[in-house]
């Protein structure tokens, strides 16, 4: 425990902001589906596809921005498939989310060999990730700007008012001449775009490489951030920063004698602990259904 005073410093905070950014981007996306009344566990799979296609696009074109665009497109397509199943075919969102996640893991692992010519992970010194502005990727600033933008869209813009109406009572909303399906599809698409950006930030900036299943539960951490924040963008930013700090600790605590597996556990244990300790903050809605 003696190390702790020396462990919290400015560099750790900067690192926490970097690690928080993919969580925040995915969580902001998840706010839209959550507010539309969809329990969306597919954030994880959409992020993973964003990461994979991001690196693949960079590998194909040589441009990280082109890679990001390809990753965002792929994640959005996956989000629209999720939407098609949940909104049009009326399938259970948790089952479909599970299928989307397993599909993303299988698809990306399958394509790793044909795309990169190797299995498991791909890393090449010629890959240049997103540029840095004052130490941060532009996506970090974008994520920060998207917090007030999401707030405005949700609470001040007609789209957000319709979205929340659909999420709270789809029948009443449709009587008020709002088409719930169109609103829900728009929410899924926005979520896909933001998860694609989250995956890009993870694989094109935090690291510049592809590793199978590299999101490793970050989509679920983002989901917990949404639940704790009750889908409010400002609180989501706070929760994401807290979880970003957990990830930053995993880097900081390496090589000081703690077994690496326990260090790697920190983000998961932190997320579960916060969820259980702050359980009373969760709204009393039907939980697993």
């Amino acid at each position, binding site marked *: 425990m003696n190390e702790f005073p020396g462990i919290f410093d400015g560099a750790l905070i900067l690192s926490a902001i970097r690690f928080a950014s993919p969580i925040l981007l995915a969580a902001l996306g998840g706010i839209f589906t959550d507010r539309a009344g969809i329990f969306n*566990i597919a954030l994880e799979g959409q992020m993973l596809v964003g990461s994979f296609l991001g690196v693949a696009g960079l590998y194909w074109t040589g441009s990280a921005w082109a890679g990001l665009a390809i990753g965002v497109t792929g994640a959005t397509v996956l989000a629209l498939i999720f939407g098609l199943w949940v909104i049009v075919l009326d399938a259970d969102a948790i*089952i479909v989310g599970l299928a*989307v996640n*397993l599909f993303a893991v*299988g698809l990306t692992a399958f394509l790793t060999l*044909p795309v990169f010519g190797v299995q498991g992970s791909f890393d090449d010194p010629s890959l240049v990730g997103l540029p840095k502005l004052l130490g941060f990727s532009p996506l970090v600033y974008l994520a920060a700007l998207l917090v007030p933008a999401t707030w405005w869209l949700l609470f001040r813009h007609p789209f957000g008012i319709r979205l929340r109406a659909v999420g709270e009572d789809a029948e009443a909303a449709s009587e008020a001449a709002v088409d719930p399906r169109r609103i829900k599809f728009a929410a899924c698409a926005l979520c896909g775009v933001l998860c694609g950006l989250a995956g890009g930030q993870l694989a094109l900036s935090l690291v510049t490489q592809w590793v199978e299943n590299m999101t490793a539960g970050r989509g679920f951490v983002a989901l917990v951030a949404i639940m704790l924040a009750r889908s409010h963008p400002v609180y989501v930013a706070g929760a994401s920063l807290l979880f970003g700090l957990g990830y930053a600790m995993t880097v900081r605590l390496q090589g000081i004698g703690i*077994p690496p597996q326990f260090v790697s556990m920190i983000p*998961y244990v932190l*997320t579960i602990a916060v969820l259980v300790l702050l*359980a009373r903050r969760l709204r009393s809605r039907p939980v697993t259904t």
Partner: protein
Amino acid sequence: MRAALRERGGPLAEPLVAVAVALGVGALFVLLASASPVDAYRALWNGSVGTTASVAQTATTAIPIVVVGLGMGLAFRVGLFNLGGEGQMVLGALATSVVGHALEPLPGVIGFVAAVVSGMVAGALWAVLPGWWEARLRVPLVVTTLLLNYVAALFATYIASYPLRDRSGGSTLAQTAELPTSLQLPIVVSGTPLHAGVFAALLLPVAVWWLLSRTSLGYVMRMTGLNRDFAEAGGVPMKRTIVTTMAVSGAICGLAGTVLVLGQTYRYLDGSIVGPGIAWTGLTAGMLAAFNPLFTAVAAFFLSALQVGGAGLQLSTSVPLQLVNVIQAVIILMVAIRLWMGRVARRRRAVA
């Protein structure tokens, strides 16, 4: 249209359509890897059920898939989305390996029983925790069970890498020491890996079926799965039912890890559960069978054939093994439509 399809085809039509669509999508992915779908599926068939040896391999691989599929499926049947089968299985395998090895001096029967019980208890404890959080605090267990998978896998990797690492054979793999032969399940068909755990895979579906359809606990479980609020209004103690269901579900998932260790790996071998995604294949089998315990075993054998055939596929063609994971995910997507129809029918009945 869907209702018409349902009425015409009977209960087997829907899973068969799901599998057919999934294999069709799989063929597209084979083309994407610039190989011939016909060749790929022929290799898949030959590698999984083409010879006696491959059938035995498929049956052996199916054993833990059946068991973990029954465990996760039981919770899903009750409306509890236990995504933690993987972690529960990992801890079951770890506990069996550690306890079995520690009790080596004792007579074989005591060691065997202790190894099996410890695996089930480990899995049950890891499942009761999120079940209790859901029941007491309404923390959705779909999230906590999934996150706990990572914690369990990292913990088991630590145990197998440092304190209890087997350094005897100069192995570079993280693994615990080999169990005494008295604990290893005997081979049933000589010359193949098929071990006595196959009886667990054959008897357990009947046991789960009996639990669900012939006991009062099973009745409460099924009522809870049909409509939780209705069951609670009818006097079902919901908190206790959730925790009990998770305990049974986790114990069965832990047993899947136990069977894997006692019959195949004879030790905790890091990555032997997470790597091939045994738990997720089991869950897919459960879904394909609409969580019917007896059909789960059949579906698990089919998915096991895909897994075993996929390994052969990778050797004989340029198609990566992960093709079978894509096929499995499409199966779940197809089945998701069907599962929902059952739910809606039930909800309508509950309202009426």
